[in-house]
């Protein structure tokens, strides 16, 4: 198995707060990797760094062996790394289908688009529809995305990130706030996509979800990755329990 994404020695501070402290991580191609850790351990910050939403001065991010540190988000997206957000970012006043079509913009020059009517988007629409069907929300194609339930929005966000056919997807709390039946559906879709060759890195608090779909887990604590291993190994690891529950001394100092 080759390493698809390699993160090495990332440091990121906000004022006095060290959010990421020599953080290193490897995502193997073809796996579903999980990233867990207590609140404030730096998971979302790491995602932001990896996808270009935050800049760093120390450390590197490599994709397929090539450095992508500090690349802008759209460049990262074009290279084949898709990313979803904790609070879903969809375009609420556009319809579900239109949300999908936005993700195909990067293939087109801006001037020509003035004269291209939305109607002339045959092939893109077909592909978008396929993806919506795959996620199970094709019935909502003409609804303004703002009308979708929270769980449906998560499915939409995943769908439109898939439009660009990325090699790897970074999912930030995909199951958060979603009702159980949709969670199962989501987990199943992720596994199917993984079977088709896509790599995943998933941040989650929902342990059942994570234990169920991940091949490997990385645990973060205070800005660094402390343990990596299979779900079984990680579950029993003393350092992990320490991180989540906190040692007796630490509690007193809080």
């Amino acid at each position, binding site marked *: 198995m080759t390493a698809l994404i390699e993160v090495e020695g990332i440091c990121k501070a906000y004022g006095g707060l060290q959010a990421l402290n020599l953080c290193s991580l490897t995502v193997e191609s073809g796996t579903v990797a999980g990233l867990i850790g207590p609140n404030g351990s730096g998971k979302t910050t790491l995602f932001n760094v990896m996808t270009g939403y935050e800049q760093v001065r120390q450390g590197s991010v490599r994709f397929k062996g090539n450095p992508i540190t500090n690349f802008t988000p759209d460049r990262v997206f074009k290279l084949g790394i898709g990313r979803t957000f904790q609070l879903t*970012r969809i*375009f609420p006043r556009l319809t579900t289908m239109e949300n999908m079509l936005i993700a195909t913009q*990067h293939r087109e020059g801006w001037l020509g688009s003035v004269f291209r009517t939305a109607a002339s988007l045959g092939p893109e629409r077909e592909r978008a529809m396929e993806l919506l069907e795959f996620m199970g929300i094709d019935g909502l194609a003409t609804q303004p995305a703002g009308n979708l339930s929270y769980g449906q929005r998560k499915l939409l966000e995943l769908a439109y990130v898939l439009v660009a056919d990325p090699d790897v997807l970074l999912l930030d709390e995909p199951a958060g706030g979603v009702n159980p039946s949709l969670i199962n559906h989501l987990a199943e879709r992720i596994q199917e996509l993984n079977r088709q060759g896509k790599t995943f890195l998933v941040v989650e608090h929902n342990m059942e979800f994570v234990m169920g779909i991940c091949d490997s887990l990385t645990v973060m604590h205070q800005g660094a990755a402390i343990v990596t291993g299979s779900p079984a190994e990680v579950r029993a690891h003393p350092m992990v329990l320490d991180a989540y529950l906190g040692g007796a001394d630490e509690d007193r100092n809080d």
Partner: protein
Amino acid sequence: MSRRGLIKPGLIALALLALGLFPFVFSNPTYTTIAVFTLIYMTATTAWNGFAGYSGYIPLGHAAFFGTGAYTFAVIAQHDHLGAGYGLFGLIPVCGLVAGLVALPVGLVALRTRRHTFVVITIAIFFLFQLVATNLGITGGSSGLQVVSPNWPGATFNDPFYFVALGLLILAVAASWTIRWSRFGLQLLAIRDDEARARGLGVRVGRVKLTAFVISAIPIGMVGAVYAYFVGQVFPQFVFDPLFDVSIALMAFFGGLGTVWGPLLGALLLEPLQQYLTLSYSVGDLYLIIYGVIFLGVILLLPLGIVPSVSDWIGRRRSRQERASPPAPAGGDGDARAGFLPHPEPDT
């Protein structure tokens, strides 16, 4: 779908017919004068909405382009000693183009800022234009410029202006509609909803905004030229009037910001009112107050404007009638929905 599908084109055809016949039915010059101004404002509001409504950035300085168009017309007409007549209408596209060219640097500066700073800097730039026009020699300073007036008979003097303005309106609406349903329009609307996310997905946000900004300036420059020719004189305080921007913003909000037909409706309803208020003796002094109150009322009570509220209402009635199937999207102007979660806006 066929019966519903015919309503809209049918209404449009009817409206065009009515507009075309208007000056012959109501030939009193007072009415046609009000009509010319109304058409001018309808065009300006539609053009402004083409940028503001679709992108969510609210410029309050577009009067700068109106004045640019007006002055361009006046200056060229004066300096080239062109005779007054139908031919002079040919200058209008030129004035529009000049306004567009001027909008380019303005947009480049203004669009670098965030949304609320953008509003303010457009106001500041507008005042810059007003100051320059008041002080510069070529623009006649504070006494303005005279424009040659054609020797047409008084009874039908307004008619050519009416039809030119109508033509410009049709062009503006066609442009607005085309943009709305194009890929370009989709990008603008995405920018309106979540600019950072759109940029992250590869939308060329800067270029798209600038293009829309420049395009919106062109019709405004053109109606500025029509105004100059119609009124016969150009004063800096009238063609660079902050109330112009307040008016078109109000009209767009009133009718429905971001829709194709809303701005038309807003201008159609409010401009005759504005004309009546300014001309009417008894309420002349109250004009500003009434305007301000209407504006407050619209923003606070009807923030979406008429068109989206009405289509929302129709949509809800239809969904009550069609219980099983999901509500049909409001005809073409699917911006009716409000009440969605505000998106977080990180500082990127």
